[in-house]
């Protein structure tokens, strides 16, 4: 209990959580205002990227794992979001 | 061989191989009928030859699985079989029932067979792969239950390893799913829907547990790699198999009157089905590379590695080729399906049976491995059969692509029979390759009779 670095981890987790909730609020707001179009989609997909990254690194603790593991899981996240963005963009045209 | 009762596997393996020969002979008849339409007509029409071909396959694979179970369960459980006498009795019951069924197929018209065997009581016949008369189906259930009783009792009194647990689960699943063969509603959509619970959930479900268990057993024996390592990979692979394979059933529900959502679910999950097969190939090669002993039975090692590769190609790659709904819309029910079926059955289930037979038969005949000469002959059989099936698959794929193009895709779709005529070159090539396969099978069988310097049993 008296080891400072581990308390630091708890605080770090709290901050990550606070950020995740705030980001979710923004995404919700985009939905509530009925915002459509590339800018709104770029915003929510960008937020999803950051949220996913934080979950992977801080909650799943991949920051303790090797680069390969990070590449695989984060690569999944990037690939999916890129696919979504690409199909959205193509549907616009 | 460490336990006397393991020897009951021997008649099962011998009968399996005999039925294998029958299967191939009837396959050649059918192949010829594809290009020489009235060959043996009306005495052995195509549908009869096909019943014998497919049912002989199913029965011999089951015989092989049972033999494999009788062989490996006592060794895994470290105890004698619960009842060797029951195993032998069941063997004869099963063999006679299968023999009588084939005689029935060949000697009387199918409608007559249906009538005299009481199909009116509970109509179950006349559906693909489930053509067996009611009596035979009931016989299969009885034999399966008695067999499972024997195996389960053996495992209960002995050591419970991952291998015999997975094997037992696969065998019980096999028996349970077969019960759906008794459900045949008038509603064709429901009939087809639950028919797949037997067919798909067998070959892309519970049979793969049996396959995995047999392969893991042989790999432990021939490589000497730690059981712990092999068993945990076994669990991982069969997890992937069932995770993808169960919902993968949906790839049969695209065009049979079932809702469109199956096109999405079926495509996604069946597209992932190659993964466990790929994992299995990696696993087999990895274990052999990490081997801690040089087992004298090289032929068994070859069969084990071959199972991994060919199952991946046949079930994995050739399955993936036509599993996505937009592709399957054009390929459904064509020679593409036949191509996949041939390589998948050979690569997964024929080869795993030949793997355990190759490993266990020498031991049951009192030696660790066959003579070098015998093994070389067996390996010739391996290569002849395996290369043949690859070419049979390629020719059928070519025929299928042509068929799809002419009959389904082109602007002026050609009638079925005209399109078939266009593909006749490929059917001839397939038939000749089939002859080579038969030669391979004869060479393989000949290896059992070749003597020479043998190594004593360990």
């Amino acid at each position: 209990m008296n080891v400072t670095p581990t308390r630091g981890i708890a605080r770090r987790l709290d901050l990550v959580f606070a950020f995740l909730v705030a980001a979710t609020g923004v995404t919700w707001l985009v939905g509530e205002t009925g915002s459509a179009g590339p800018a709104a989609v770029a915003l929510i997909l960008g937020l999803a990227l950051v949220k996913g990254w934080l979950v992977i690194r801080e909650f799943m603790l991949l920051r303790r794992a090797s680069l390969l593991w990070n590449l695989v899981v984060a690569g999944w996240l990037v690939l999916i979001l890129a696919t979504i963005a690409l199909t959205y963009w193509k549907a616009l045209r | 061989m460490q336990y006397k009762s393991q020897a009951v596997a021997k008649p099962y393996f011998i009968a399996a191989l005999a039925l294998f020969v029958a299967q191939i002979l009837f396959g050649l008849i059918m192949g010829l009928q594809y290009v020489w339409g009235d060959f043996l007509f009306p005495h052995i029409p195509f549908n009869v030859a096909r019943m014998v071909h497919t049912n002989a396959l199913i029965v011999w694979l089951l015989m092989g699985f049972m033999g494999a179970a009788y062989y490996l369960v006592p060794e895994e459980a470290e105890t004698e079989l619960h009842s060797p006498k029951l195993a032998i009795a069941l063997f004869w019951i099963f063999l006679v029932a299968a023999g009588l069924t084939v005689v029935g197929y060949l000697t009387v018209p199918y409608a007559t067979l249906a009538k005299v065997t009481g199909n009116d009581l509970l109509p179950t016949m006349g559906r693909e792969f489930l053509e067996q008369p009611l009596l035979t189906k009931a016989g299969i259930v009885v034999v399966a239950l008695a067999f499972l009783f024997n195996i389960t009792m053996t495992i209960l009194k002995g050591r419970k390893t991952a291998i015999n647990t997975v094997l037992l689960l696969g065998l019980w699943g096999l028996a349970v799913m077969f019960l759906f063969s008794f459900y045949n509603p008038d509603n064709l959509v429901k009939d087809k829907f639950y028919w797949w619970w037997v067919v798909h959930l067998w070959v892309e479900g519970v049979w793969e547990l049996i396959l995995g268990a047999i392969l893991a057993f042989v790999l432990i024996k021939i490589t000497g790699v730690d059981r712990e390592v092999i068993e945990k990979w076994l669990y991982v692979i069969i997890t992937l198999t069932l995770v993808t394979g169960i919902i993968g059933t949906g790839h049969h529900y695209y065009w049979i009157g079932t809702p469109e959502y199956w096109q999405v679910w079926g495509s996604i999950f069946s597209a992932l089905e190659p993964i466990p097969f790929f994992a299995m190939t990696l696993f087999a090669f990895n274990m052999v590379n990490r081997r801690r002993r040089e087992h004298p039975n090289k032929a068994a090692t070859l069969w084990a590695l071959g199972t991994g590769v060919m199952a991946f190609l046949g079930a994995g790659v050739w399955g993936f080729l036509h599993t996505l709904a937009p592709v399957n819309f054009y390929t459904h029910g064509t020679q593409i399906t036949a191509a996949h079926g041939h390589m998948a059955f050979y690569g997964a289930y024929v080869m795993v049976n030949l793997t355990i037979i190759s490993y266990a038969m020498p031991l049951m005949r009192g030696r660790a491995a066959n003579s070098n000469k015998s093994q070389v002959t067996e390996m010739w059989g391996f290569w002849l059969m395996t290369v043949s099936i690859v070419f049979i698959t390629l020719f059928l794929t070519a025929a299928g692509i042509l068929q799809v193009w002419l009959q389904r895709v082109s602007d002026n779709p050609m009638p079925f029979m005209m399109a078939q005529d266009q593909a006749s070159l490929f059917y001839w090539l397939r038939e000749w390759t089939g002859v080579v396969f038969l030669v391979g099978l004869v060479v393989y069988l000949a290896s059992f009779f070749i003597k020479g310097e043998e190594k004593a049993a360990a």
Partner: protein
Amino acid sequence: MSGTFTTSTARNIFYGGTLFFLLVFLALTFQNEQIIPKRDRREMLANPQIAEGKKLWETNNCIGCHTLLGEGAYFAPELGNVVVRLGSKEAVKAFIKGRPAEGIAGRRSMPQFNFSDKDLDAIADFLEYVSKIDAAKWPPNVQG
């Protein structure tokens, strides 16, 4: 700490994962049963001829050569849409009836089953019923 891989965890994941995907599959099956009444033309089964025709279809092992909605053997034409392809039930019956007992020299030949007119009616009714099942626009064209 990292890099562990235990048999017991692998085993638990196997059992849990299998059970899980089985449940998902059963849920999809449940939904399937709710939706197919709109697609499978079960109301047509009020005509007992169709069940009789299906039985004749089965006990003569038609599936051993033909496909029905794409399933079966690939030796002879698809029959799910045969009533549409030949134009009428009468044409289907005439075709079945007209098969020569000794086959056609050198060609793939359909056996002469010697069906009674009543049997032929039942078979034609069954094939008509199959042609009306909503098979998601399959086959791609009338040639099956």
